[in-house]
């Protein structure tokens, strides 16, 4: 059963289209990763789902409530954590959560219980009397998450909840979110596919306001198999080297890992798998040019590399892989 149904959903900021005719459905109870680079339109899409932004075109239904005519009903069933948790710094954690519980319509008799429950869920109990202004970014974000959870929403929208976190904070936040699995439908936006792949069931990949790929982790892994990655350390002036590599239809993307003053470059090359492998092509290139080489190694591309490839191929329609959307399962 779908909790979100979007048809031709479009949002413009002035003349700029930030969300461009999106069509998607999200099933109830799943954790969906909304992946895209900065400026891809993820936050605008989430803000439309919260009813904070009104779409310019298209249909959007959340739990069968229409966004245009039934926005207050939608706000009752969603919990939203913006990229930077918008909280009152001069309030104490418990006091803030009590205030949010009350304005979300929780009965006065249940407020204390609800606040204690979310503080426990988000590991905030030791900080209940702390001023929010005195909390670290990670804990402030947890206060925002606790706020989003307090009214036990059916749909939880988390906009880059781990942005700016160190690896430990990130891990802790992922654990907190993972614990919520099964109880809520969650949309988790991130620009890092690798980061959220462990906890998400499905993914929506966005670029430039458009949906470029939708499917499960397995489907994305299929995309990984279509991508080759070769690491190479080669000596030659960078500009000329890049021109030569770009000229080849085999090389789809070049990533410079490290460059030294004496023109040694550690590069990562990406290409789509076909008859001639990328590694074979690189060997031929080295033989032909006779540039000094220290390393030539084929590696399994990461999910983020696939995401980059998907984005790149979207910009070059002729190089686009044939299938991007997961076929629906036959019942």
């Amino acid at each position, binding site marked *: 059963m779908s909790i979100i149904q979007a048809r031709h959903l479009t949002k413009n900021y002035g003349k700029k289209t930030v969300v461009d005719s999106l069509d998607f459905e999200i099933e109830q109870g799943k954790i969906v990763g909304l992946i895209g680079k900065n400026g891809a339109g993820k936050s605008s899409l989430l*803000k439309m789902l*919260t*009813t*904070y*932004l*009104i779409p310019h075109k298209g249909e959007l239904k959340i739990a069968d409530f229409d966004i245009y005519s039934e926005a*207050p009903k939608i*706000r*009752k069933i*969603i919990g*939203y954590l*913006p990229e*930077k948790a*918008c*909280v*009152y*710094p*001069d309030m104490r954690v418990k006091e803030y959560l009590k*205030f*949010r519980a*009350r*304005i*979300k*319509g929780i009965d*006065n008799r249940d407020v204390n219980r609800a606040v204690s429950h979310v503080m426990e869920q988000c590991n905030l109990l030791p900080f209940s009397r702390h001023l929010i202004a005195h909390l670290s970014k990670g804990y402030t974000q947890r206060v925002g998450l606790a*706020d989003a959870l307090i009214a036990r929403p059916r749909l939880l929208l988390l906009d880059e909840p781990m942005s700016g976190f160190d690896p430990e904070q990130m891990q802790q936040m992922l654990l907190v979110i993972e614990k919520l699995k099964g109880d809520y439908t969650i949309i988790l936006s991130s620009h890092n596919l690798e980061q959220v792949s462990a906890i998400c069931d499905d993914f929506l990949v966005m670029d430039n306001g458009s949906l470029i790929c939708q499917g499960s982790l397995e489907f994305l892994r299929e995309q990984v198999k279509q991508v080759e990655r070769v690491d190479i350390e080669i000596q030659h002036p960078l500009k000329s080297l890049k021109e030569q590599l770009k000229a080849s239809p085999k090389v789809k993307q070049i990533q410079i890992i490290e460059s030294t003053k004496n023109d040694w470059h550690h590069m990562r090359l990406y290409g789509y798998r076909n008859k001639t492998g990328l590694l074979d092509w690189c060997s031929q290139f080295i033989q032909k040019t006779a540039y000094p080489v220290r390393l030539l190694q084929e590696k399994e591309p990461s999910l983020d590399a696939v995401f980059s490839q998907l984005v790149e191929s979207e910009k070059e329609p002729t190089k686009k892989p044939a299938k991007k959307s997961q076929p629906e399962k036959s019942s």
Partner: protein
Amino acid sequence: MPVFHALLKKEFRALSQAPATWVIWAVMMLGQGFCISSSLKVFQQQALIETVLFTSFNNQFFWFCYFILFPLLTMKLFAEEERLGTMESLLTAPINLSWILMSKFLAAYLWYLILWLPSVIAMIVISLTPSFKGVFLLEDVVAVYLLIGVMGISFVAWGCLCSSLSKHQVLAGIYCLLGLISHHFLGWTTHIWGNYFQASSFIDFLSSRWHIQVASQGLIAFDSWFYFVSCGLIILFITYYHLNLKRLKR
């Protein structure tokens, strides 16, 4: 109603913790204390043409207090929410925009009334003190403070509107101050150019100075009440409309 109560409580608390509120209170107490005591001193030394109440409310110190009160009390209301981004979290909660507006307005208005309380108490105490018997009539004091209360409706509403115009509270405060000064100086138009032109009485009526002068003579003027209450409601409606439009335009 519990939701509105929670919003109102939060706004009231935010104002009570704002240093600006306490600064205004100090200035108000000093200013009003100075106005009343200097009027009484003059009353004791020489006969006054006007009443003590009239001179207490028609001097530059009173208007100075009045001008700084509204900007300092209201400039943070919406500007601070916009700056912190908390307006987004309020608007994604299941509450109406009108509740947000009314809670902010009412909290600021309640504080406005509280700020006048020391001066009301002082006036009552003086009017009941035997040595100052006859200086103020209690009915006159009631008339002037009722008008001050009613005037607050429109000026607090004006402050709310100014605060919704910018996310910089200082800028919001300046807008509010400019509006108040312009409104006040309407009352000086007839004083400067004379009241020979047709619209002079109408312009007098628009200014707050004229209404204070009437009320400080102990007259309860219901047309003044109607004027300030209706202005307040219109400004609140404009503020609501502006906030809603801003939300839709995002």
